[in-house]
């Protein structure tokens, strides 16, 4: 809402500077977002009177004028034809500056001297009219600076009116607040209608069929109007409020809307067939062309204002082209009505028409202000257009609009809820200042009736808010409530997340956050199978774009996409992870399933800027990272099982991550086909784990200290030649299943393929460590166990000892 301070002063005598008013409004909940100064875009332009006009002797499109500023007479050559002797016009004298920075100079035009310029509205940026020289009111004294004569120059506050404060979408509402905040008195405009003897009821009628959508419809008739431009004062007001001027009739209705908050509409009565108004809902597939020239098929339940035959306006939203006020309009039917707010909102949204009228109706206008605004606008139209207002007005009011009365208010409740020691006297004063009516209702209690424009107030809490808002939030003392321990615990998964995050960071991975929605082609890019559950994606019905239209079902695509973008930027060595949710559609009527995932990606060098390194990440690097996490979470029963279920992973370089026989995620290299599709050169390794499967109480597993043996260990190495398909785990399991007490540890220390060993085989080097806790083992003791274990391996796996 743009609030002109000059206009505001018509209703409240406020002398404060703009900054102070802004501060007061802001601190009362009407945030001033900007203070704009309107200044005349010209200087040294004065009021001039034309003494004579004659044709230019040579150029027939020019006129020669003598213009006086009261003390001197100037010869001015003029290109516009709309002037005559006696006209009062803006005169830019030599030295004057007009918008655009032009300075007026003395010149000779086609042989005739010109000492100035007569200006149009648009040349002075006072209005849009560029059709000819601007005509000023006849009573202005020549010589007066134009800005003084027209009272140009203003300060405008851009007030952010919250959706609850429909009463402040007009000047009187803002003035009411300013008056209360500054202790001044409000001066509402006096509304008095000079009626002719012709009764409106004899000329027309209003019939409301759908009174649930239009509980009240009032109208007046204004005859013998002359449509023309609005006077300058009106134009200046509307411009300051950010509204374009159209003609004196429409401008008058807009002025009253801005002043009182009641949207109005003027019909050209000659186009209302059968001389009547019928208010009804739209019929099926009904078509209508509104004032903006657009034709639409109206959605069902749209409220229409019709004449005896056809629709002439979309109620509360926009008038129709067929009944628009035109240059030759003589009789006006002026509408002032109350429309059902939710219905206006629904229709305006469906139609995509957010007009100033709809904006006010959907927030709720003052149901008792309808007639006052009707009268105010009718008289203004008559004054501006030379018309006469007919006798009486129509007031069809079939459904009483409920207004709230006698809301109980307890002073103690204010004190309790706000934490202040406010007196009843203060409360009463604050509420009366904003137009509330209070009746004592027992000790420390009142019955409060708000003004009908305050449609946001119906409960005690609404009154408390009013009191505290005007009392001042800054006067409420701060208090630090005692900390108490609630029974509630944080979600266990969050602690787990923090642990994982720390482990990932420590392993060199950087956290990213991608949008939860992405492109629908992700599933195809990842080659997900037709029956893959990750094809059950949730779609957004109104996405910002196709590429942001489905909720992700895996985080892998987002990671790949991010990696791709970073490589485009020249960063090839990437280690990234993301924690977040994926979403899978469930049965109709159920909310989608949301899973908490962690996913990681690695590509390029293990460390991006090491001066003496250069090793690339591989499967085992990422696996090592996961092992670190699981160690940290005290999860020691994870298994990595080769599988070929993830279609986007390299079938030979990927595995499932199993925990207690539950598949909690996967790990592997991205499939070369996928790499080709996304045009990615370096190998990429990814993992994804469903964190919901990780045990809630990861720390429950107690650590029990194992005594460190005082006796030395005996190490024995052995290398086996085995089939390339034999997994290391299988070898180790064979050994571990023997449950040999003295075998402290066994692990793979070397893997070799190539020269020296037969095709189709590999060499696995195992290191055995033997130790007893209570004595030093003898060599022969160790040898006998070791030999036994080697035999077992050979027997079970069919491998050979490598010479």
């Amino acid at each position, binding site marked *: 809402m743009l609030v002109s301070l000059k206009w505001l002063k018509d209703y409240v005598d406020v002398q404060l500077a703009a900054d102070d008013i802004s501060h007061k409004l802001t601190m009362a*909940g009407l*945030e001033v977002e900007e203070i704009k100064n309107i200044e005349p875009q010209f200087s040294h332009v004065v009021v001039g009177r034309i003494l004579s006009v004659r044709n230019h002797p040579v150029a027939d499109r020019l006129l020669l004028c003598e213009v006086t500023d009261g003390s001197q007479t100037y010869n001015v050559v003029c290109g516009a034809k709309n002037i005559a002797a006696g006209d009062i016009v803006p005169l830019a004298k030599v030295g004057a500056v007009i918008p655009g920075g032009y300075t007026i100079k003395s010149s000779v035009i086609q042989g005739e001297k010109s000492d100035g310029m007569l200006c149009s509205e648009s040349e002075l940026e006072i209005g849009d009219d560029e059709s000819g020289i601007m005509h000023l009111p006849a009573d202005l004294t020549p010589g007066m600076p134009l800005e003084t004569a027209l009272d140009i120059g203003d300060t405008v506050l851009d007030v952010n009116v*919250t*959706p609850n404060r429909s009463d402040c979408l007009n000047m009187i509402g803002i003035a009411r607040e300013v008056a209360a905040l500054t202790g001044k008195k409000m001066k509402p405009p006096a509304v008095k209608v000079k009626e002719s003897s012709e009764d409106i009821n004899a000329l027309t009628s209003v019939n409301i069929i759908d009174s649930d959508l239009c509980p009240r419809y009032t109208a007046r008739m204004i005859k013998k109007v002359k449509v023309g431009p609005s006077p300058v004062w009106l134009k200046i007001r509307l411009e300051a409020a950010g509204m374009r001027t159209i003609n004196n009739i429409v401008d008058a209705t807009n002025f009253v809307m801005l002043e009182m908050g009641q949207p109005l509409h003027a019909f050209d009565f000659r186009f209302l067939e059968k001389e009547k108004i019928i208010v009804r809902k739209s019929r099926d597939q009904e078509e209508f062309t509104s004032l903006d020239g657009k034709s639409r098929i109206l959605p069902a339940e749209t409220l229409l204002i019709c004449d005896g035959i056809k629709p002439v306006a979309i109620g509360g939203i926009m008038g129709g082209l067929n009944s628009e006020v035109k240059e030759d309009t003589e009789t006006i039917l002026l509408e002032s009505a109350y429309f059902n707010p*939710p*219905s206006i*909102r629904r229709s305006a949204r469906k139609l995509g028409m957010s007009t100033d009228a709809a904006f006010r109706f959907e*927030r709720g206008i003052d149901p008792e202000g309808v007639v006052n605004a009707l009268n105010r606008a009718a008289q203004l139209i008559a004054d501006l257009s030379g018309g006469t207002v007919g006798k009486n007005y129509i007031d069809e009011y079939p459904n009483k609009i409920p207004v709230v009365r006698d809301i109980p208010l307890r002073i103690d409740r204010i004190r*309790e809820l*706000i*934490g*202040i020691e406010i007196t009843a006297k203060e409360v009463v004063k604050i509420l009366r200042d904003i137009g509330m009516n209070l009746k004592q209702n027992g000790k420390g209690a009142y019955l409060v009736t708000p003004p009908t424009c305050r449609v946001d107030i119906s409960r005690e*809490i609404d009154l*408390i*808010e009013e009191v505290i*808002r005007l009392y001042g*939030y*800054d006067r*409420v*003392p*701060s*208090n*630090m*409530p005692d*900390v*108490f321990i*609630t029974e*509630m*615990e944080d*979600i266990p998964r969050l602690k787990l997340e*923090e642990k994982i*995050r720390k482990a*990932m*960071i*420590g392993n*060199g991975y*950087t956290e990213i*956050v*991608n*949008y*939860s*929605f992405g492109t629908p082609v992700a599933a195809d890019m990842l080659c997900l199978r037709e029956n893959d559950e990750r094809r059950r994606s*949730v779609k957004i019905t*109104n996405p*910002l774009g196709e590429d*942001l239209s489905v909720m992700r079902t895996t985080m892998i695509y987002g990671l790949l996409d991010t990696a791709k*973008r*970073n490589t485009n*930027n020249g*960063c090839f060595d990437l*280690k990234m*992870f993301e924690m977040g*949710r994926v979403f899978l559609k469930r049965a109709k009527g159920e*909310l*989608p399933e*949301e899973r908490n995932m962690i996913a990681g990606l690695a590509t390029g060098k*293990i*460390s991006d*800027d*090491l001066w003496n390194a250069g090793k690339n990440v591989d499967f085992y690097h990422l696996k090592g990272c996961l092992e670190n996490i699981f160690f940290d979470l005290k999860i020691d029963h994870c298994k990595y099982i080769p599988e070929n279920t993830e279609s986007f992973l390299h079938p030979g370089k990927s595995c499932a991550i199993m925990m207690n026989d539950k598949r909690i995620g996967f790990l592997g290299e991205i499939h070369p086909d996928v790499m080709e599709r996304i045009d990615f050169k370096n190998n990429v390794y990814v993992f994804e784990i469903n964190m919901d499967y990780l045990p809630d109480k990861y720390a429950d597993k107690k650590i029990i200290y194992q005594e460190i043996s005082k006796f030395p260990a005996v190490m024995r190495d052995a290398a086996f030649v085995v089939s390339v398909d034999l997994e290391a785990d299988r070898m180790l399991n064979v050994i571990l299943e023997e449950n040999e007490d003295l075998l402290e540890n066994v692990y793979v220390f070397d893997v070799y393929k190539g020269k020296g060993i037969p095709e189709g085989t590999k060499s696995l080097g195992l290191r055995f460590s033997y130790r007893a806790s209570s004595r030093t083992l003898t060599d022969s003791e160790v040898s006998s166990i070791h030999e036994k274990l080697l035999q077992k391996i050979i027997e079970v796996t069919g491998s050979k000892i490598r010479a």
Partner: protein
Amino acid sequence: MINELQQLGKDALAELKDAKTLDQFQNIRTKYLGRKGLLTGILRNIAKVSDDEKPLFGKLCNELKNSLNANIDEALQKHADLKNQQDLFNDKIDVTLPGNAIKCGRIHPVIQVRQEICSIFASYGFSIVEGPEIELDYYNFEALNIPQDHPARDMQDTFYIEDNVVLRTHTSPVQVRIMEKIQPPLRILSPGKVYRRDSDVSHTPMFHQIEGLLVDQGVNFGDLKGILASFLKKIFGESTVLRFRPSFFPFTEPSAEVDIRCVMCGGKGCRVCGQSGWLEILGSGMVDPAVFKNVNYDSEKYSGFAFGLGLERIAMLKYGISDIRLFFENDIRFLKQF
């Protein structure tokens, strides 16, 4: 004789002082203390000393011998130390080369802000709760006193999945779900992703919010001011100036917008604060009785306050970031700065 002895001592120490090489030290020892050395020579002449002076002369000779020996030993040790040091120094490395342990990754800046805020509220006794990101219209709007066809819905442009299913526009619906299950007293914090249909330099269609709720008997607006002031001073510094001003949120009444004095210009007015000198940081208010009614809390018995803030906004102010979209582009060169 005694004078001669003393002069000898002075000479020896002077020579020792000038000596630098191992040979020179050895020569001094031989010259004075050797079998044919000067001190030994004087001692041989002890017979020439009078009987009275003999004990003193003997004592002085001994002292000089010991002291010379000690001085030479010390000088030798120093010399050896110096040489060792020199050898080690010659074996030097270039300490200015960068370290080559694996570089730690970084935590996303928005998550860092979330961690900081959560730990501050943990110290006030708030527990963290979560809820679905794809939410029923009822929890996202209706239960929070934002009815269908209410202009307050304009405040949040919504992504729809179905007619009555939305991407949550704030994390407040979590509070409703918790209140449905748990009776007061309650102190909860719900961080998470939220979605609004908006995209420009200061809006992304997804961003992070933290909302808090405190419900108990006798909670008042002064408590709201106290906790939020304490929190903001912890985040932005003890000297942070703040103001509470009336605003409107459908689920709180009275509602308050909390501004801090602009951290960029100190209140003089700049581009970041839109010349106002103030920055909107969070929305808050006393829980509206209509919300309590929806979860069957008795608003005569209990009162409470709620607040919410956008994490990206805090991170932008903390780190001087002017384009919110940077948080979700995940450019590694951006992320590595935090």
